[in-house]
C-alpha cells in the first residue's frame, strides 16, 4: 500500500504542472488585465505598473519565472491587493474555509448517513418516504435560497444569531447548517441506495438465515459495502468543501477562499488565480487518493494495483 500511496503522490507533480501551464496561458489569453479599469490609466502609468510586476516581459519568460518561484513555494504578489503576497492571502483565509467546510461536513455526515441507512432499512415505510422527501428538498433548495431564509428567520426575526460575519462562535451555526444541509441530502440518498444494493445480496440473506440480528446485519455486514458510493462522492466533495463555497461566503460575509476563486478571476489577479488553482489541484488529488485507499479497505474485492 505504501508504494501505491507514494506513486500517487508523485503523480501530483506532473498533474500540477499541466494544470498550472494550462491556467497560466488561458489567463493571459483572456481579454483585459489586472489594471483594466473604467477610467483608463494613462499609457505611462500602465507601462510602469507592468514593469513593476514583470508583466512587460515576454509571456514565456514570465511563465518560467513563475514556475521557478512555484518550485520554491512562492506563489508571488497579488496584483489586486498591493501589499500582500498570495501565500499570505491563502494562509489567512484557508483556516476559515477549512473550519466552515469541516463543520458542514460534520453536520452532513451526522445527519445524512444515519438517515440514509435508516431509510434503506425501513424501506417503503413512512420513514423512508419522509427521508426521501427531505433529501429531495435539500438537493433542490440551493444554498443561496436557504441561507438568507435561515438568516431571516433565526437572525432577524428570532434574534438568535448574527446574520453575517465570522467573529464569534455563534456565527458558525447558520452557514454550516446551510452548507451541511445540502450535502446531507446527497449523502442520505447515496447511503440509502448503497445500503439497499448491499442488503439484497446473497451474503446478507445467508447471515440472516444463520440468525444474525437486524442491527448486526446492518452495522457489521452491510455498512462497509453500503457506504462505497458515499466514499466515492466524498472525495471530490471534501476538496470542494474545504476550499470554500463562494455563494455561502457571499451570503454570510465569511472571509474564506471561496469568494476569492471567483473574484480573482474577474479581477484578473493572475497570481491569485494560479495559487488557488494549485491549492485546489493538490486537495483534489490528495482526496482522491484517500478515497481510493478507503475503498480498498472497505471493499475486499478491490486491491491496490
Amino acid at each position, binding site marked *: 500500500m505504501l508504494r501505491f500511496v507514494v506513486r500517487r503522490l508523485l503523480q501530483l507533480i506532473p498533474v500540477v504542472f499541466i494544470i498550472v501551464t494550462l491556467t497560466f496561458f488561458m489567463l493571459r489569453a483572456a481579454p483585459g488585465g489586472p489594471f483594466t479599469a473604467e477610467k483608463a490609466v494613462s499609457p505611462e502609468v500602465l507601462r510602469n505598473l507592468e514593469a513593476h510586476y514583470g508583466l512587460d516581459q515576454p509571456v514565456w519568460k514570465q511563465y518560467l519565472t513563475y514556475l521557478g518561484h512555484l518550485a520554491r513555494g512562492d506563489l508571488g504578489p497579488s496584483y489586486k491587493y498591493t501589499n500582500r503576497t498570495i501565500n499570505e492571502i491563502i494562509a489567512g483565509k484557508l483556516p476559515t474555509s477549512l473550519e466552515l467546510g469541516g463543520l458542514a461536513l460534520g453536520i452532513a455526515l451526522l445527519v445524512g448517513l444515519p438517515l440514509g441507512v435508516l431509510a434503506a432499512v425501513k424501506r417503503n415505510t413512512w420513514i423512508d418516504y419522509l427521508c426521501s422527501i427531505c433529501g429531495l428538498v435539500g438537493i433542490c433548495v440551493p444554498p443561496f435560497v436557504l441561507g438568507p431564509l435561515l438568516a431571516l428567520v433565526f437572525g432577524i426575526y428570532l434574534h438568535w444569531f448574527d446574520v*453575517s460575519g465570522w467573529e464569534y462562535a*455563534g456565527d458558525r451555526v447558520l452557514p454550516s447548517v446551510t452548507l451541511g444541509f445540502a450535502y446531507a441530502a446527497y449523502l442520505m440518498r447515496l447511503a440509502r441506495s448503497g445500503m439497499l444494493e448491499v442488503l439484497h445480496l446473497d451474503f446478507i440473506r445467508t447471515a440472516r438465515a444463520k440468525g444474525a440480528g437486524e442491527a448486526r446485519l446492518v452495522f457489521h455486514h452491510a455498512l462497509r459495502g453500503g457506504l462505497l458510493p458515499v466514499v466515492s462522492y466524498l472525495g471530490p466533495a471534501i476538496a470542494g468543501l474545504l476550499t470554500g463555497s463562494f455563494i455561502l461566503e457571499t451570503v454570510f*460575509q465569511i472571509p474564506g477562499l471561496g469568494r476569492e476563486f471567483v473574484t480573482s478571476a474577474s479581477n484578473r489577479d493572475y497570481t491569485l488565480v494560479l495559487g488557488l488553482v494549485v491549492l485546489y489541484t493538490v486537495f483534489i488529488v490528495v482526496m482522491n487518493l484517500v478515497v481510493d485507499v478507503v475503498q480498498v479497505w472497505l471493499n475486499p474485492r478491490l486491491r491496490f494495483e
Partner: protein
Amino acid sequence: MSPRLRLPPLALAFLLLAACGRHDRPGDEEQVLHQGVGADPNDLDPQIVSSNQAAAISMALGEGLTNYDPADLHPVPGVAESWDVSADGLAYTFHLRANARWSNGEPVTAEDFVFSARRLLSPAFAGEFAYMMFPIRGAEDFATGRTRDFGQVGVRAPDARTLRYELHRPAPYFLTLTAHWCWYPVPAATLLRHGRIDQPGTAWTRPENFVGNGAFALKSWRQGEGVVVAPNPWYWDAPRVRLRGIHFHFIDNPDTEERAFRNGQLQITSSMPPGRLGAYRGTPGGVLRATPAFETDVLYLNLGRRPLDDVRVRRALSLAIDRDALTSAVLRDGSVPAASLVPDDPHGYAYRGEPRLRFDPAEARRLLAAAGFPAGRGFPPLELSFPNGGLAGPLCEALQQMWRRHLGVDVGLVGQERRVFIDNVHAHRFTLSLSGWIGDYLDPMSFLDVYLSASGHNDPGYRNPEFDQLLEQAAGTAGRELRYERFQQAEAMLLRDLPSLPLNHRPNLHLVAPSVHGYADNLMDMHPYPAIWLESK
C-alpha cells in the same frame, strides 16, 4: 445507538450554540460606529486606494490640507489653517497648523506634502491618480518622465509650516482637489523604512506600521473581515471627535449588507439592493438616504462607425429615448433622468442652457429621415454592448425596444464580462456602449475634459478643436460667474454634437440608522467623521 436517538442531541447542540449566537458588540452606547464599505480595499495607502467606498477608511485615517464641508462641500481648513491665493490664481500658499501631528506624535510639516507629491508623481510609483496633480506646474512632465528633476515641479516648502503650489494655469477648484485623499500627506520616515519613495505596495500600511494624520488611527486590518480604527489622540481637532471607534466591515454583497443592517450589526451601509428601495421608502425615520450623486450614466457612440458619424442620427437616437420611463419603470433604483451631461450642483454649477435632452419621437423620426433613413429603412444594424450584471441588461433591452418602436431601427445587444467590456471600449471595439462617469472632484471640468481631443478617456473619439479651445478658455477663467458661463457653452456644444448620450444620474444609496447624527447627504458622498456621533438610548 440507533440513528433515531442521534437527532435530539443535534438539536440540543444547535440550541446551545444559539445561546452564544448573538453578541452585543460595542455600538451606540459606546459611540462605536459600524459601517459597511463594500469589498476589500486593494490597499490603505491613500495614494493607492482606488475605490470610493474604501476611501471612507482613508478619510478616517488621514487628512488633507483642506476638508469638505459636509453640507455644501465648500473647502474648509484641514491640516492648513489658512491660505493665500495670488491675484492671477497661479500660486497657492498654505499655512499649516502648529499642532498638526501624525499618529505617532511627530509634527506634520510642509516637507511631508512635498514628499507626498513627489511620490504620487513618480513614474515608478505608477499612481492611478497622479493626473489629479497635473494642474501643478511641471507635474505632468515629471510624471510622464519627460523630466527627471523634481525641482522643476511647482511645489515648495519655504519653511516647516508654509507650503506653496505653483500652477501652470488657474484652477479655481484647486481647494477641492487638495481635499481628495490622493493629496493626503504620507509619513516619509515610516515609508522609507519599508521601501523606496516610489515603491508601491510595501509593508508600511500594515497595522503594526501604519501612521496617519487623521482623526483616527489604525488598530487592525483583517482581510475579508474589516478594519478597526480608534481615535487618534494627536489629531489637532481631537476634542471635537465624539466617536470612540469605527469598525469598517467588508461586505460586498448588498443583500448581505442590508440583512446585517436590519439585524442591528451595522449603522451605515455602503449601498442598497435596488429591489428593496420600495420597502424602505415607506418607512419613516430617515433610514434610507437616496440623494443625487455626482455621476452620469451615458451611452458612448463610436464616432468612427457609420452612420454614427452623422450628427442627425445621433440626435435621432437621443430624442427617441424616454429617460423618464427608463428611470421610473426599468431602473427604479432612485436614478433621475439626465437633462444634461454634468449633474447639477445646488451650490455650484448647474446647466441651464439649450439644448437640453428630451423625449421627442416625432422629431427623432424627422431627423432620421433627413439623414437618409426614413422610418429606419436602410439603417444598418448596430450593436449595443454592456457589462453583464445588475440592471445593465434590462436597461439595454428597454433602449432596444424604444429605438425599434419609435425609429424602426434594429440594435443588437451584446453582454460582456466586465473587464472584457472595458478592454473593448478603451480599444474602440464597440459601436454603442453603456458606460458611466463619476466626477472625481466637484467641478464641471471633471466631466467635460473627458471630451478633449487629447484626453485618454475620450472613448467616443470626439475631436473638435472648437470645443478644445472653449474648454481650455473656460478652465483658465478665474472669475466664477464667467467660468460657469463658458462651461455652459462647452456643455451646450457637447449636447448639440452628442458624442455620448447621457441617460440618467444614479443616486448615492445608503441605509443610515436613526442613532447616527452628523451624517449629511451631499453630492460627493463625503462624510467627515469628526462630525458624526451616535445617540444612545
